């Protein structure tokens, strides 16, 4: 963790591709167990932020820390250790199309560890059960619906128990009902597993759903999605990007009450 307790910290980060400036002097923190929702129009640099965090891209200047490690200065080999606590859900899922759901979800264990197969299979089944896709374990990704593929992508990112999950447009292109099943997973992971998350989206409906709801277990031990308490709402923070800069930062109520013309046009 960084000195201010944040698990992810951006300090004056800049990035440009040739003449196209993507991020300008970007600074923000994400505290442990919190959710940061990054809003913005297409091309505003939202996904780029996630790629910088994972080390898939490097910033031109500024500091990027993940669990206290300066990912902007680490080699590809050194990044592997940082990535062991990071799970990323890509746009469209990015499932390995030649592998089954089981192999996708257990990929990291099957390929990168010597963990016994029985233990890996048990973990894969546990995770798929958590997201409600246990019966699809032996299917190929092409046999799944769009929503199921996103949820399998979440399961794959979740399987090795990372402390941080990064959602890159996890609900884009899904119908509202299917999108809510994905949103529910984000809420459950935050509230039941204590996962720190960054949710990148341009869909306000999903952003508000994640902020306004929380997951609890009822007396029968079943998970329920209920309206978030005011304290829980504050655990979800919003950032709005415009031209690579942060033009808004606050909680869901601040966002609704903002009179900023750009925000208003985005919210309308």
């Amino acid at each position, binding site marked *: 963790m960084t000195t201010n307790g944040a698990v992810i910290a951006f300090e004056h980060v800049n990035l440009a591709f040739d003449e196209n400036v993507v991020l300008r002097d970007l600074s923000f923190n994400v505290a442990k167990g919190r959710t940061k929702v990054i809003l913005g129009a297409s091309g505003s640099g939202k996904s780029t932020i996630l*790629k910088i965090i994972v080390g*898939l891209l490097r910033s031109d200047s500024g500091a990027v820390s993940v669990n206290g490690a300066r990912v902007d200065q680490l080699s590809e080999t050194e990044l592997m250790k940082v*990535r062991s606590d990071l799970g990323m859900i890509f746009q*469209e899922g*990015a499932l390995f199309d030649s592998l089954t759901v089981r192999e996708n979800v257990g990929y990291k264990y099957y390929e990168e560890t010597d963990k016994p197969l029985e233990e890996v299979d048990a973990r894969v089944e546990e995770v798929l059960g958590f997201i409600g896709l246990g019966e699809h374990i032996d299917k190929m990704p092409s046999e799944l619906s769009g929503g199921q593929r996103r949820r399998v992508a979440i399961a794959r990112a979740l399987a090795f128990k990372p402390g941080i999950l990064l959602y890159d447009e996890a609900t884009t292109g899904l119908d509202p009902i299917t999108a809510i099943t994905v949103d529910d997973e984000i809420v459950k992971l935050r509230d039941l597993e204590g996962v720190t998350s960054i949710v990148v989206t341009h869909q306000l409906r999903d952003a508000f759903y994640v902020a306004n709801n929380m997951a609890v277990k009822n007396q029968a031990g079943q998970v329920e999605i209920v309206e978030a308490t005011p304290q829980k709402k504050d655990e979800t923070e919003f950032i709005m990007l415009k031209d690579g800069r942060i033009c808004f930062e606050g909680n869901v109520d601040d966002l609704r009450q903002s009179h900023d013309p750009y925000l208003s046009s985005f919210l309308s």
Partner: protein
Amino acid sequence: MVSPPIYTHDIIEQFDALGVGSLTVVVLTGLFTGAALASQTGITLDQFGARPVVGRLVSASMVKELGPVLAALMLTSRIGSGIAAELGSMVVTDQISALRALGTDPVRKLVVPRVLAGIVMAPLLTIVSDFVGVFGGWVVSRFQLQVSSDLYWSSVTDALYSQDIWQGLIKPFVFGFVIVTIACHVGMRTKGGTQGVGKSTTLSVVAGSVAVIAADFFVTQILVLLLYP
């Protein structure tokens, strides 16, 4: 390349896909090339009354030049395009990024097994192509040119020296490396969605084919200097 992790099952899978999977096309190419070569050279040799030595020309041409080059060109079109398309698709669908995010080095996982398969299987496929080509030459020599089998096979072996065989084995080793390296490089640098995948596939075949022909010239020059002092 030799430090862990080593993706053994990917290496075996690529050996199978590249080697066993290319066997049919290499066998057919070698067979018809050897047969056509015997037919063509038979006509030329007749002008000098030298039809019985047709086996010499077939074996020397197949082992030193046509076997390695044609097998390599077939491999370029078959596996070069396949590798570029597969890796290109993985790039444009973020699967390569997903691999990296999951802690896997895409070069170790995807490129190294393919390169190993290329440099091992290309020489083996070329040996098969050479044998089948010489066999194709025998079929034409025996049944079309009416050269006796004993004469054909003795002239095949008479014409081959150890330098020729070394040349025929070293060339495909280089070609296998060149074909797969180009295909992997082009595939991993794919940009622009499905259109980009198409462009990468085409570029892989074109660049691979030209590189094989160019490499053949340069490797031949080097081997002639080294093997035939």
